């Protein structure tokens, strides 16, 4: 076949070149770059919407802000066909086993975005019924602050996640390891859960009996 580009002024040197191996139809790249590029730009979100953040998520997915621009065309309401778990809203303890089951059902590689103050920390719901941050239940990659975050905020979080994915390497053996429950049924040390759940800001002035 005929060579195009700068090579066309150069006569084929050997058999391989003559066979067309230097044609511009070939690209070389680092495997990481290639894999991460494709992963980052075809994220399928699994929306776990429990509260007002889910309304902002819907706005993000709809035409004005349009998640599809970032390769998130299909919102997978099926964990088995999803890459990103977006927990949009507060998570009561009653839903804790549900989100864990959803996370366990998602195939690797998978990531998690905690959207809004309540999903990230429990927010204003520092009470008996609410999980104090979903990072006590599932590992979180990106926290999006806000109450609720505007769609621009969630988009920024998604772009940060894409940036994070582009920095990963497929050769890291620890990166995609499933963290399973210990004998107690927890995914973190109990002390770590307690520490993550500690009140902060204004709520430190409350006592446990308040």
């Amino acid at each position, binding site marked *: 076949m005929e060579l195009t580009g700068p090579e066309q002024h150069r006569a084929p040197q050997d058999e391989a070149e003559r066979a067309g191996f230097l044609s511009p139809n070939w690209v070389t790249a680092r495997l990481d770059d290639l894999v991460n590029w494709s992963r980052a730009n075809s994220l399928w979100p699994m929306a776990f919407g429990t509260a007002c953040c889910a309304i902002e998520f819907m706005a993000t997915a709809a035409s004005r802000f349009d998640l599809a621009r970032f390769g998130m065309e299909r919102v997978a309401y099926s964990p088995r066909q999803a890459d990103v778990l977006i927990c949009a809203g507060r998570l009561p303890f*009653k839903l804790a*086993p549900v989100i*864990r089951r959803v996370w366990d059902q998602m195939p690797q590689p998978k990531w998690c975005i905690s959207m809004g103050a309540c999903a990230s920390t429990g927010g204003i719901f*520092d009470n*008996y019924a609410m999980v*104090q941050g979903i990072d006590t239940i599932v590992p979180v990659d990106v926290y999006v602050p806000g109450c609720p975050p505007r769609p621009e905020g969630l988009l920024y979080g998604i772009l940060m996640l894409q940036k994070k994915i582009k920095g990963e390497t497929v050769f890291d053996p620890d990166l995609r390891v499933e963290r399973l429950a210990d004998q107690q049924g927890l995914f973190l040390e*109990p002390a770590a859960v307690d520490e993550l759940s500690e009140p902060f800001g204004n709520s430190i002035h409350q006592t446990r009996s308040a």
Partner: protein
Amino acid sequence: MAALRSRFGAAVERTTVLLGASVVSVARERAHEVLAWLRDAPDQRYDYLVDVTAVEYRDRERPLELVYQLRSLPRGVMLRLKVDLAKDRPLEVDSVVDLWRGADWLEREVWDMFGIRFRGHPDLRRILMWENYAEGHPLRKDFPLRGRFSRSEQVRRALGADLQAHYSMEELSIAEAYDAVPADVRERLLGGEQER
């Protein structure tokens, strides 16, 4: 109210009119009888039970108040009926599910949140909190805001909950079709949706 007083006498403990709403307080032993009369008497006809709820006051001496909000659709009037439940006796009253079918979930909620038992309720289980919730009744004044257990214990118990246990067959609409479904489906329904 006058009719109520003349009929039940001492069982009617207090009557007031608060912001245009009639509030009647009755003894707990006769509450079911009074409510049945309010529903059925031709000049009362309180056919709609709007809400059942309860109030606990900060003053520990004061009894818990169980509140029935009634409405008469044909007459277009409301009536609030309260039952004082002294704390030195078991918190127990007669269920009114036999009078208003809609009281079922309302009474379950009061049981869940306040720990008031309803005698004769067909299915007195928790409704908001999950089945194996062991920390007590959250709306009681002696219940700490953040619960009784440490956060790690709460997370451990929550994650240990059986996902299928939240739903009994009676709650699923398919239960109504029980006789119509094939035998193998019937067998599976009886066993619950367990993983095999």
